[in-house]
């Protein structure tokens, strides 16, 4: 498995965990009756907090991931060639983490797929308001659809890395 695939899996799993944590927290609060069903301020602040948690978790996990990956590459290089120096190991790490035109094309195409899912969720959320559901439902639908859209972006990237991608 390549560096890009590992990085995508890490960030997708992080996104899924944050979404799962939000769902558990939100459903728990709602079921306990601690929050009024129409308290939009509570839901908005909860979502903002979880967006912050998601961003912080992504940054921390990516840093840890890159440190672990660099260590594993260095260890592999040392085992393979006991004579290799630090400069050589650094070059190998850099070569492994390079982002080229194929990565950019895959990112572009999968971002589009992610936005399609987020867009469908947004329209469905607006539809729920029209169908007289509460604004809390709409807010949650939007938040969850954007999170799921981001996860689908990751799945699409993995698919393109496995199956290949062509211009046009």
């Amino acid at each position: 498995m390549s560096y890009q695939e590992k990085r995508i899996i890490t960030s997708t799993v992080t996104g899924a965990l944050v979404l799962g944590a939000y769902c558990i927290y939100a459903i728990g609060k709602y079921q306990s009756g601690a929050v009024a069903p129409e308290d939009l301020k509570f839901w908005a602040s909860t979502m903002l907090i979880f967006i912050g948690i998601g961003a912080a978790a992504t940054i921390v996990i990516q840093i840890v991931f890159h440190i672990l990956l660099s260590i594993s590459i260095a260890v592999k290089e040392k085992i393979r060639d006991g004579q290799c120096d630090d400069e050589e190991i650094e070059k190998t790490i850099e070569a492994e983490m390079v982002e080229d035109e194929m990565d950019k094309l895959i990112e572009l195409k999968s971002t589009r797929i992610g936005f399609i899912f987020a867009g469908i969720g947004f329209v469905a959320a607006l539809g729920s308001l029209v169908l007289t559901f509460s604004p809390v439902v709409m807010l949650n639908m939007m938040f969850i659809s954007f999170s799921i859209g981001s996860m689908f972006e990751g799945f699409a990237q993995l698919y393109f890395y496995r199956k290949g991608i062509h211009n046009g």
Partner: protein
Amino acid sequence: MARKFKITNNIRKLRFFANEMTQQELAKKAEVSRQTVNAIEASKYSPSLELAFRIADAFGVKIGDVFDYEVKGE
């Protein structure tokens, strides 16, 4: 019937004749990742013209010696 173009390549053969050059070595010369070289070799990715020239340059041959295309559905 619409014509379909499939880009084929001789990278594996050229690597063999270049003293069994590894994908990593070719990737370094062409300034891309090893995975991209692997995808191009397996015809899973069609490179840009610029990258195609860089790959040909890495082997010291013309672009036509590395890449070719098949026309299907004529």
